[in-house]
């Protein structure tokens, strides 16, 4: 069975440009998470979806970040416009249900110049 798929794996953009990350969770997993991980730090939860409903988005910088999970399967995280401080690894994870074991994708390493 395929794991969590993320694309792209790497992205380099100039500041003020938009960028989007895509995640395909494990089939049947109702809960989807987006994390941001800065160098030397643990993952920081940005948003959690239960099916297509966004919950726990208190850490999502809503002025420039947006996310969607149409039909409760794939998800997209967007940043517009990107800032230098957004350089990080963006991780997507999914779990069968809230509180259950999370399966992480390989992440997207974003570099903003």
């Amino acid at each position, binding site marked *: 069975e395929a794991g969590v798929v993320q694309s792209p794996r790497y992205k380099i953009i100039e500041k003020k440009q938009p960028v989007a990350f895509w995640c395909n969770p494990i089939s049947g997993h109702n809960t989807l998470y987006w994390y941001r991980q800065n160098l030397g730090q*643990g993952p920081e939860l940005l948003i959690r979806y239960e099916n297509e409903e966004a919950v*726990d988005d208190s850490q999502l910088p809503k002025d420039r970040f947006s996310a969607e999970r149409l039909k409760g399967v794939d998800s997209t995280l967007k940043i517009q416009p990107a800032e230098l401080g957004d350089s990080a690894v963006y*991780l997507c994870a999914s779990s069968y249900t809230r509180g259950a074991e999370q399966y*992480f*994708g*390989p992440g997207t390493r974003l570099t903003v110049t």
Partner: protein
Amino acid sequence: LAKTTQPISMDSYEGQEVNITCSHNNIATNDYITWYQQFPSQGPRFIIQGYKTKVTNEVASLFIPADRKSSTLSLPRVSLSDTAVYYCLLTDSGAGSYQLTFGKGTKLSVIP
């Protein structure tokens, strides 16, 4: 918000048992204790989860005292491939919203 505290780093020789302790004084009734392992350039990987007493699987054991204010991840006979960052995490499986906080984790270095 319940937080966890772990040592920043630990060193161990190959073949030794490693115990990593996590403090979580404000753990809530609905919280489970979950440990993840992360290698460089990879996403975290689930190791073990428990609520109380002891849990054991094929890779690790988790010891949780009765007051649940701390927990210890035990890795038997570590090898070089166990060099990674280990995160202790509280996960709430109850109703309502909750926050997942990984913290900085414990960087384990296994020495030949």
